[in-house]
């Protein structure tokens, strides 16, 4: 359609001459992908420990040695009593207080049982939980070692023991980056797709050029396609820049088929642009467009499964995520990048996003009226 080409030409002219948009297209991927993954490291390491050792025995020392030898813990301080140790927690010098009671060694050997206590700064719930788990694990191992020195297992111990082995798949290095980067890429596309398109249309409204369009013989679908296509293409540019950065800076090579990523991105972008379009029909000013977009994007991103797992959400929240396009793409990104999932595997997600794309865009087209 010639008219469509004419419109597209004008749109690109405007975009190319707009320094802020260009900055966003190129800088945003760079900033987000270079800085966010470095920041977004949820790995629990360097847990700071304050020890209250009221036993001062060989065994208590052994335990301390074992803890500091591990990669997870750093013994920051040895305190005389619990209250002194609490000051460390209040000042955020330490995360966990390990209290070894007096007579620990004696109780263990003579009474066959001894107690330890961990007080965990759980302000950060996840970190507290995992830190405590690691500590408990190490104490368990320590316990086993002590038992071993006192007798050999099979002979004296008539009790069956289940040996548990752990195997971590798809992520040898247990790297958080591998996990976060694909997710951040999705967020990038989300921001570009929704914000830019909404702002663009509202800008025309604010400046008044939209009136000229409404009076001309340009058809609704031509106008809308003229707005969608440039940002759709920009989305691909951003995606490519993002994948390149992922590859060359983080060494992330998708385990699966890149083509699938682009395929999904194509449909995903359409869905998001549809949302941007909808926002632009409601918003009267750029500030409104920005706020409304921000509101929805924030909800989508928070509940997209990047920061916390969707499985942990209460049922009603999980239902809400069914309507969240971002969730579907984050899942797909991870599946393809880390697990080499196939088209069949992602087909369900693809279908849902496809339906969303159709619904949002149709709704926007119906809402957009040349004549009021």
């Amino acid at each position: 359609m010639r008219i469509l080409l004419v419109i597209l030409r004008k749109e690109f002219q405007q975009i190319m001459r707009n320094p802020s948009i260009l900055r966003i297209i190129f800088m945003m991927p760079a900033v987000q992908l270079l800085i966010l993954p470095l920041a977004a490291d949820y790995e629990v390491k360097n847990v700071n420990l304050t020890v209250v050792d009221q036993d001062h025995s060989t065994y208590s020392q052994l335990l301390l040695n074992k803890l500091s030898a591990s990669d997870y813990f750093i013994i920051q301080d040895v305190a005389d009593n619990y209250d002194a140790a609490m000051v460390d927690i209040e000042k955020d010098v330490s995360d966990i207080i390990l209290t070894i009671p007096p007579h620990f060694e004696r109780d263990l050997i003579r009474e066959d049982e001894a107690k330890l206590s961990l007080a965990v700064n759980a302000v950060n719930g996840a970190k507290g939980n995992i830190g405590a788990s690691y500590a408990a694990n190490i104490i368990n191992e320590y316990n086993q070692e002590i038992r071993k020195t006192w007798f050999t297992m099979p002979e004296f111990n008539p009790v069956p023991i289940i040996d548990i082995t752990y195997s971590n798949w798809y992520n040898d290095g247990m790297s958080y980056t591998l996990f976060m980067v694909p997710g951040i890429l999705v967020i990038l596309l989300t921001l570009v797709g929704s914000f830019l398109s909404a702002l663009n249309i509202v800008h025309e409204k604010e400046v008044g050029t939209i009136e000229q369009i409404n009076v001309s013989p340009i058809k609704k679908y031509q106008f809308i396609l003229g707005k969608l296509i440039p940002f759709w293409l920009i989305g691909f540019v951003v995606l490519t820049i993002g994948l390149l950065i992922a590859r060359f800076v983080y060494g992330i090579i998708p385990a699966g088929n890149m083509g699938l990523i682009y395929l999904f991105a194509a449909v995903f972008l359409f869905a998001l642009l549809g949302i941007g379009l909808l926002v632009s029909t409601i918003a009267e000013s750029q500030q409104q467009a920005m706020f409304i977009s921000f509101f929805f994007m924030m909800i989508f991103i928070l509940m997209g499964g990047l920061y916390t797992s969707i499985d942990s959400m209460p049922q009603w929240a999980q239902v809400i995520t069914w309507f969240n396009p971002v969730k579907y793409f984050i899942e797909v990104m991870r599946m393809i990048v880390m697990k080499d999932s196939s088209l069949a595997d992602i087909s369900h997600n693809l279908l849902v996003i496809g339906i969303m794309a159709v619904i949002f865009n149709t709704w926007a087209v119906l809402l957009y009226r040349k004549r009021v």
Partner: protein
Amino acid sequence: MQQFWVFVRKEFYHIFRDKKSLLIIFALPIAQMLIFGFALTNEIKNTQIGILDNANDEASLNLIAQLDASKYFEISNTFTNPDEIDAAFKADKIKLAIVIPPNFKSELAHNNSARIQLLADATDPNTATTLEVYASAVIRDYQNTINNNFKLPYSISTEIRMLYNPQLKGAYLFVPGVMGMILLLISAMMTSISIVREKELNTMEIILASPLKPMILILSKAVPYMVISLINVSTILLISVTLLDLPINGSIWLVFGVCFLFITTALSLGLMISNITDSQQTAMFISLMGLMLPTLILSGFMFPIENMPVPMQVLSNIVPTKWFFIIIKDVMIKGLGFSSVWREILILAGMTAFFLIISWKKFKMRLA
């Protein structure tokens, strides 16, 4: 003084005319609080797992029953051969697979030992670790039941107490974060947009040409947003205490005091931004890119600062929100008092003064 109130009224009028923006300003913190408070959690429950039971005997079935009964797991897949496991992971159907060896029961009875494999989808390392820990716990519990809770000699029992947040709610961290973000959004971004709008519409010149002191104009713009910010803070705290059961352990006056200080910081930042640009769009983008983004990343509310590379940790020190966050956390959650946080308060106040002085200087320059 009279002029001041006239301008404040005008500003309120502008704000209330824009109903959609207003709606979002008030709805945003509520939505965030609800999401963070109720939807987002790191707690693991009902996670889909799969079992490859090579034994199919009484022991394995009992173990499986215990796993199924646990609130952490939901057995969604049973496999008959190992290849199915990979496929299930790839289709994102399960997060953990448990492999029970053949002859499980007889191995345990006669050899006193049997090996169970836990295969975790480690795309999310923390979830994988946590799942492994929980699964191990269930397996050990099972082990104890078949041992008739025979107590091993030399047992160390560990009592674990979670401080400040016994229920491990994720929300504790997020409430201060939401507060910080909202305050920045309203007091910094909206104020700067409001000032820049006058410039764009050329009404600024008219005002500057009048005998009105420019300081009055600026203050008059700040006041409405300060009021809205305080309302939002109150809303957040209210939701926090009533709906989320997050008590305010410290002095509520201190909390409000610190919020007030931070609002001033945000306002001064907004002022600084309005001095740099004449276009609303640019003001918006600078606010987002230059304020919100670093706040989100470097303030410590979403991502742990201690895990970041050192240069970023250093950088985080110039982000005002980081200090606000520490103070609020300490006061609200740990219940600490002024004596513990005066240093951070001083830093925040110092930053505010700095921004104000710079803005004022720049502003004067433009007038000259």
